[in-house]
């Protein structure tokens, strides 16, 4: 029994849904961040699976780009989170709502 494309897409969808729920439901910025990464990697997984299934390199190329951009994004995002924490002593998003005050 071989592992088919459907299994990969199922896994990717699950990961993506988990990541999305993490983004939606968690209050800790760092966790939201990790959930974002999870969503990105779910998409990466799907892309690699498609690439393998189609026998082309397009999906793999996409994955490299996504990884690169995600790394850059993490560098910037983490820096912002650190700066926020220094200023407000918290990383909980429900306490970082300056607009509502």
């Amino acid at each position, binding site marked *: 029994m071989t592992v088919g494309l459907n299994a990969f897409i199922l896994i990717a969808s699950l990961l993506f849904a988990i990541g999305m729920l993490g983004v*939606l439901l968690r209050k800790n910025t760092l966790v939201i961040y990790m959930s974002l990464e999870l969503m990105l990697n779910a998409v990466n997984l799907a892309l690699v699976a498609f690439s393998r299934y189609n026998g082309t390199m397009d999906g793999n190329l996409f994955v490299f780009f996504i990884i690169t951009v995600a790394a850059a994004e993490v560098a910037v995002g983490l820096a912002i989170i650190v700066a926020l924490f220094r200023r407000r002593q918290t990383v909980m*998003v429900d306490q*970082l*709502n300056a*607009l*509502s005050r």
Partner: protein
Amino acid sequence: MTATQSLLVVLLAPLASAAVIAFFCRRFGKLASYISVATAALIFAATIAALRTAGGEAVTMSWNWLSFGDFNVAMGFLFDGVAATMLTMVAFVGFLIHVFSLGYMSEDKARARFFGGLSIFMFSMLGIVLADNLIMIFVFWELVGFSSYMLIGHYLETEEAKAASKKAFIVNRIGDLGFLVGIVYAYWHFGTTNLSEMQGIVAANSELISAGIAMLLACGFIGKSAQFPLHVWLPDAMAGPTPVSALIHAATMVAAGVYFLIRITFLFPVDVLNMIAVLGTAVAVYAGFCAYGQNDIKKILAYSTLSQLGYMAAAFGLGYPGVALFHLITHAFFKALLFLGAGSVIHGCHHEQDIFKMGGLLKKMPITAITFFIGVLALCGVYGLSGFYSKDGILIAAGLGNTPLFVLLTAGAFLTAGYMGRLFWVAFLGEAKSESASHAHESPLTMVVPLIILAVLSVAGGWTGFWPEQLGELIRADLDHLHHAEGYKAMHKNVLIFGSAAWLVGLLASFFFYGKGAREDKLDKVAPPVYGFLKERLWFDEIYNFYVAKIQQRLADLLGFLDVFLIKGVVVRGSAGLVGLVGMCSRALHVGNIHGYVYWFLAGLILLWAVAVGLIG
């Protein structure tokens, strides 16, 4: 000095004088008055110089003032016979009135403002006289309107003067609206506003004469010359100082309306001319009636001015602009004399203006009284005096052209003699009827000398044979034209008889009625309704007030409601409100709740996905 340079001096000297007074002499009334009078003398000298160097030739010059693309507004001079005649009169009478003001205004607190205003007025008036195109005339037209406003309101601590100045300005504005539209229309029609060019165009193709343009431009004349229905401002304008009444509201500015008509005679088709003739005649008679109901010496003269302007308009409408100009010039002499005489009387009686509180001034102020009487006779058209020639010309023109107008104008002459007689007998004969009149004294030299000079002119101003060669070209031409008209001889006889009868009967009747030192107007006792009717100026002011208060106010209310409701409410507030509403809604989302943002983000994403795969749309 070429003629052009002299004319530039004429035009710019009073402007310079006004500027100097306004910027440097605000506190030095005496100095300001001398500057202004010296300027007036300089204007007169430069006028003479221009006349001599021009030698009867028309002088023209122009330069571009504004250019928008291929549309140019020129400023320029057209110094032809008509302008020369008018300029000489304005410069000379203006100079005399300036000198008179030296004495009359010597006690005034705001002398500098007054003389600065006179200089500004001279500048604007001379601009009208010299202008060679409609736009320039309009610019200076507004300037004389402003000067008039400023000088009527000179005694700005009195309510009356404030109201009168506003009234004069606003009523004139109504006429000027027509004038402005007429200028635009004329430019569109002829492609130029230059007087000579328009004359050339009209001469080449007479079918281009347009009644619309003529009527619109005549609106300006109706406002400035205070013809019906815009006549209500002139009597009120007497709230200003007397020299102003003499200069602006008798001799020059109100006559500028007639002068303007004479300048654009060639634009008038026959039917519009007839309308103006009828209008002028109506005003001549109406104002004659109104003058009976006035007790204020200046208001009587103001109505008299209205009436005489009506005569000028009638002469113009009958097709004799030269005769209108003739009457304008002679009227300027004797009406300026009468106003200055009235000023002298007011000055002597310590600012008493009610003729029924004067009396006995003949003994106390002999020179003023005699010169005033000469003015009265000239105005009545006594044989041989200046008013006789010009008024006769008008009556003959009417007699030859239009019998009903002739009858009305002759009746107007009778009325003229009547109210002037009433004024003279009541104010100068009999006993002094008040404290201030019994202490009257003759005025100082600066006031008496102009009176004497003007009296001489009132007598001799109509003898066109003695006029210098350069002046009165159009007047002579039109009088000649009249002399050679069909039936002139018989009509001339008629006019002599009727005209002389009119002033004789008028003066005598008023003498019998008022000559015994009346303390109040007997007409009030004899026929109160008639008197009230006259006193209230036939209720024109009331009608206008009613109109403005009721009808126009309703309209304004309606428009105001529309403005508030539609424009402000729906369009302005509406558009802003819509944006504001969207803002209100979206503000509710942006409260810093990151999860909320993500929900919306996902909702949008799902929506887009649904559209992309074709579930929606």
